[in-house]
């Protein structure tokens, strides 16, 4: 009795430590994966295309900058001066000709006749026409003087300002609220600092997640190795098996609640030339989603549509409830023999347990989604003289997926071992 108890206790403490390690690392993976999800969500909110490329306010600001620049940098070139002069001259000539014709009209009144005579004596209309050129020159010179140009620019700029005030949409208010919220949350004051904070935080979180996930899987592997070493000591098998089931439970829970696939489609940059100046929109998030299996189920269940709810229930049943029940049944089966329900769950229900199907399904979804997004975004990639757009697709599998894969393989191994260490059930089946 003593001889079995002592190694039992030793074994339990040893594996207990490993189990605690796995739980701790699993918890860490879960925490950091959630943190990553939240940061990315905030990032995608503040960089959403709604507040950038789709916002009239943004376009207005960018365009008005270009126009202001154009107005301020404008100066009349000699060529334009010449053209203007020609135009003014022409205008003046017709004016003079008109005036002369007016006076030359046959006059009926005495006063009119006198005026006409005086005009003809005093004014030589040819000489008047000759004067047109110097007058036009004066006008142009006056208008193109620096002071005058500055004044005209002022007028134009203020007129543009008026037009700008008549162009707006509803983003500014929403945008202000969003930025306010984000800046407060991350203790930053400008977009550059925000981007930097997000970047460094994500880097740290990513490294942590990888480290923790690896440690967790390491604990599980260590436990398995332990078991392999102990495979000859029959009296310890039950204890080992129960602890292994706990490991599987931890893997399952972490795998279910950590994000599995992340979809992130962006327009990295959109540049075009307007009036010789570049207009740039950067980092426009078109679409962002990051979900765990649990999120997928809750999203489906929270729909109004009955078909979505049905699917949600089915997935919940086959991927969460059934695997947990089966783990439980396997544990119970060791102590309670010959219970029909327990036996069925432990040995026969694998046909209904779709965790392995889920792995393949998620992988297929990931690849398919990735492929479709890539080709759709590639259609948006334009490179020509006037317009350049760059799109990126950061769709990736997340740690949750790999942990879930770990669970499925572990579960396979467990099923195999269970069949080996419980010959009773198999022989019962055979006898039937």
């Amino acid at each position, binding site marked *: 009795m003593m001889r079995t108890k002592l190694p039992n206790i030793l074994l339990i403490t040893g594996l207990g430590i490993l189990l605690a390690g796995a739980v701790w690392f699993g918890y860490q993976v879960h925490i950091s994966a959630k943190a990553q999800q939240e940061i990315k969500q905030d990032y995608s909110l503040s960089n959403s295309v709604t507040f950038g490329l*789709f916002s009239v306010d943004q376009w207005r600001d960018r365009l008005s900058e270009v126009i202001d620049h154009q107005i301020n940098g404008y100066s009349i070139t000699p060529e334009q001066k010449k053209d203007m002069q020609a135009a003014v001259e022409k205008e003046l000539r017709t004016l003079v000709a008109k005036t002369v014709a007016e006076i030359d009209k046959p006059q009926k009144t005495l006063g009119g006749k006198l005026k006409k005579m005086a005009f003809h004596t005093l004014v030589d209309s040819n000489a008047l026409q000759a004067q047109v050129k110097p007058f036009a020159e004066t006008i142009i010179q006056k208008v193109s003087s620096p002071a005058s140009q500055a004044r*005209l620019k002022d007028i134009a700029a203020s007129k543009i300002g008026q037009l700008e005030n008549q162009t707006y949409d509803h983003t500014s208010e929403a945008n202000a609220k969003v930025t306010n919220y984000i800046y407060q949350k991350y203790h930053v004051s400008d977009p550059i600092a925000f981007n930097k904070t997000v970047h460094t935080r994500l880097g740290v979180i990513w490294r942590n997640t990888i480290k923790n996930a690896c440690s967790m899987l390491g604990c599980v592997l260590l436990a398995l190795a332990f078991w392999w070493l102990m495979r000859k000591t029959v009296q310890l098998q039950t204890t080992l098996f129960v602890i292994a089931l706990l490991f599987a439970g931890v893997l399952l829970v972490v795998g279910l609640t950590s994000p599995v696939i992340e979809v992130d489609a962006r327009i990295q940059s959109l540049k075009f030339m307007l009036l010789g100046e570049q207009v740039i929109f950067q980092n426009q998030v078109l679409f962002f989603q990051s979900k765990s299996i649990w999120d997928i189920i809750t999203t489906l269940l929270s729909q109004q549509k009955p078909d979505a709810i049905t699917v949600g229930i089915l997935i919940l049943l086959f991927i969460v409830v059934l695997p947990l029940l089966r783990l439980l049944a396997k544990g119970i089966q060791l102590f309670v023999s010959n219970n029909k329900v327990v036996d069925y769950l432990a040995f026969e229900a694998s046909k209904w347990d*779709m965790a392995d199907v889920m792995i393949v399904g998620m992988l297929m979804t990931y690849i398919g989604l990735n492929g479709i997004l890539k080709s759709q975004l590639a259609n948006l990639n334009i490179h020509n003289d006037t317009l350049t757009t760059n799109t990126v697709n950061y769709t990736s599998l997340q740690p949750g997926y790999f942990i879930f894969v770990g669970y499925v393989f572990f579960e396979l191994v467990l099923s195999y071992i269970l069949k080996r260490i419980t010959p009773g059930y198999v022989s019962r089946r055979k006898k039937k």
Partner: protein
Amino acid sequence: MLLCVEGFFALRLYTLSTQQEQIKQDYTDINNITLGLMSVDNWKDKVADIVSHQVKHFKLTPKQKEELQVEVEQVINALINKAEALVNKPQKSLGGKIKQLAIKTFVNTDKIRAQVPEFARSIIAKVDNPKQKAQLSTLAMTKFNEAQHTGSLDSTHKANQSLTDKMYRRYHVSSSDELDHKLSTSLENIRTETYDYCFGMLGCILAVLACWWFLRKRVELHAVLFIMSLSFAFILLAVGLTASMIEVDARIKSLDFVLLGEHIHFQNQVLFYESKSILGVVEVLFKQPAADSLAVGFLILCFSILFPVTKLISTGIHLLSKRKLAENRIIKFFAFQSGKWSMADVIVIAILMTYIGLNGLLDYQLASLNIKSDELTVLTTNNTALQPGYIIFISFVLYGLILSTILKAITPYDAH
């Protein structure tokens, strides 16, 4: 008898689902972005309003007027200076001298100078007066109308026109509101009808399973019953594969802004609409250039067609043929284990649905910040929905799993 009913329902379901797809496609065409946001017609009126508004209400602020006044005054002053200089030039001829004298006597340049601000004001007033502006706006409008009738604009206009005309004729309506109304009512009808047939099919399946329950003691009938059940499964599979399964609908919910004082509002601009059956999804994946998408397409094809068909056939073989063949490993795998892999398709579509269709993240985030997203330009895919084909396919998979359980119970051979 039941089988006939089932077949009839299946056929109806299939035609209805195709019909629905067709109507939805038309509906999308009508509400498409090219006919709304991108349509010249829609913009024409709005731009016309803007032009006339801008020209008619072109107003100079007092400050601008002041600056303009200074400008005009300076030009006039410069002109007067020039004229004076000309007059004051020493004249050689007698006539010239007399002229100079006369001008100096009659014309007082200082007086004229004093009047300059008055002149300038009247010039500006002339530019700024309402009548002038009305004239200008008509002029601008004529120019604008001329510009409208250039070739490229006309051709898009014609294309749109012919499209809408065709739609109107097809549905015997005369206005877009009427068309909208008609399409939505007929869609609603078709939807309820499809679901009725869908439930009819499921009812038949349940009836079959009930038969099994009642006849569970009559061992001699089992083989016949099982073969009949297999044909039900085939019908389910055929409908599940060909009826549309998921529809994806991406739109710009609203586009609402003020452009140069003119309120511009577009709603529900459909960017993208697709309705796909499983085979359609496979087709889409096969059309992608990347090899990995091809692989996924192939896998879905396997899980949705090859596996189920082989499964149904091998269950039949297992039950009817001799022991040796029945206990063949491959036959046994397909008969008992392959069923759940068809669920992979169900899962793929479900995940796609939650990622693409239920894309409420931005709305949710905005709502949590107390921002109404109605007036913002947001991309939504809220109208993405699962279709009856999906339900039928799921029922097929479950039905198949139940059948293989039944088979296990009734088989004379070893099922393991």
